């Protein structure tokens, strides 16, 4: 089967602020059923050591547009929001208004009020909003959950979870700025463990 025989969906990656944008771009690019574009309007102004904006898109051979407006005018079926955490709300609201299905990097928002507003926006627009919690899809967690559900552990008495990594100081340093991230490793890493517990 060739690419043209597949139903292609149009996906736009909005912002490269989160390093996971690179992974999304590579994966989506590798699929035959996706038409992909990306934009990173704040990329040039960010103090990152790593490439951002058009330079990164060119490296990954992805079509680049200059602004979020242009990206949404392109009519994507779905978007992936990879901005700094505090900017999630604005991008999700814009994408919802444009009728796109949305995958948003975690944490969904930096305040409960922002999160509630985002939910209201997608409900009104009738689009889906999904938070990127990839650990839920890891084979070991899927297996663990199945074993717990099957009662093999009995009643769960206690759980310990850790999520450790190198602090992003030179590359993607916004993670360490509460004004942009909402609170460092608490919101960036603990959310995964908290989500799995839930």
């Amino acid at each position, binding site marked *: 089967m060739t690419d043209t025989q597949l139903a292609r969906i149009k996906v736009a990656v909005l912002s490269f602020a989160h390093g996971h944008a690179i992974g999304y771009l590579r994966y989506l690019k590798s699929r035959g059923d996706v038409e992909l574009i990306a934009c990173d309007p704040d990329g040039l102004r960010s103090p990152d050591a790593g490439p951002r904006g058009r330079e990164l898109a060119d490296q990954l051979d992805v079509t680049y547009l200059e602004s979020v407006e242009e990206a949404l005018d392109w009519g994507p079926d779905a978007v992936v929001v990879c901005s700094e955490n505090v900017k999630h709300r604005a991008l999700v609201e814009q994408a919802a208004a444009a009728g796109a299905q949305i995958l948003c990097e975690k944490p969904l928002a930096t305040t409960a009020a922002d999160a509630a507003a985002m939910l209201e926006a997608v409900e009104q627009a009738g689009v889906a909003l999904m938070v990127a919690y990839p650990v839920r899809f890891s084979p070991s967690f899927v297996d663990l959950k199945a074993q717990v559900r099957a009662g093999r552990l*009995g009643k769960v*008495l*206690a759980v*310990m979870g*850790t999520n*450790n990594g190198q602090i992003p100081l030179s590359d993607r340093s916004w993670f360490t700025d509460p004004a942009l991230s909402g609170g460092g490793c608490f919101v960036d890493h603990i959310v995964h463990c908290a989500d799995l517990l839930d």
Partner: protein
Amino acid sequence: MPKLRVGMIGAGGVSPSHAPHWRALGADVSVYALTGGEELAGRYGLKKVGSLDQLLLTADVVDICTPTVTHRELALAAIGAGKSVLCEKPLGRTVEDAKVIAAAARAAHVQVYPAHVVRFFPEYAAMHEAVEQGKIGALAVLRFSRGGEGATSDWFYDEAQSGGIILDQMIHDLDQARWTAGDVVQVFAVQNHPTVHGNVPRNVVVHVTLTHLSGAISHIQGIWGPRGMDFRTSFDVAGDAGVLRFDSSASGTVAENLCTPESGSSYLPPDSAEESPYLTQLREMAQAFQGGPTPRVSLDDGIIAVALAEAAQASIATGSAVEFDASTVLAVKEYAL
């Protein structure tokens, strides 16, 4: 070096981890026990005696391996007879017990040490040394876990006798955390299932969080689990220049799948290729008792470990973090004996 004369009290779970090592150090060993003394004596070539008085007549060093609640009375008897004492952890059932023992030891000018054997486990000793040498920089987060099938004897599950899992088992890692990361200023703990009317549940997990004066945080998990649960300990110690990790389940040399319906592993840690840490511990104590260097664990360490366990229990009872100050714990206080 003159021949060491050791008098062991108690022939329960931990005694087989002491007796052969005293013998390996060339000591003459007597044992006094309410039950099991005959068998222990026969197995390791000890001399069984019929009373505490008799034991105190034949020993220079008294090794207390009895249930926790008896430590105070037995230690005071040994100190009163002028003996050097090694006392299984915890040093006392309460901080008061531990301080009374310490005060008596100082007044009588005899050496008394708590047996915090984890300080002698090669992996834990190596971690401590690497931290002391600054190899991982300033400590940030320390994680310790210790768990497996719960102890078999009933007295462990009577809080009045044992102090429960925190005082009996987690005291090892409370001591490790403080030994490695320094003074503790705050203690927070949670427990599931809860202890009700002094009955410690058979399946119990406790998480303790210590905040150290330096700002470092220690997280400690202790488990007394169901029959057959493998015993496992681990640490993960992170500084601003590196991380040190150990997991006993990953370091075994023999993969085991013996298909026994009750694979009940021992409450005590498995053997390793290294010298037994119990032997290392007893050698260091024996040398101190015979005028050698001060051992790596002190009487005050024993008192503070009990105090940390009590603070964790207080935190569980109140649901709040408990402020901690070692100097207040150690401050001289008169106890009515």
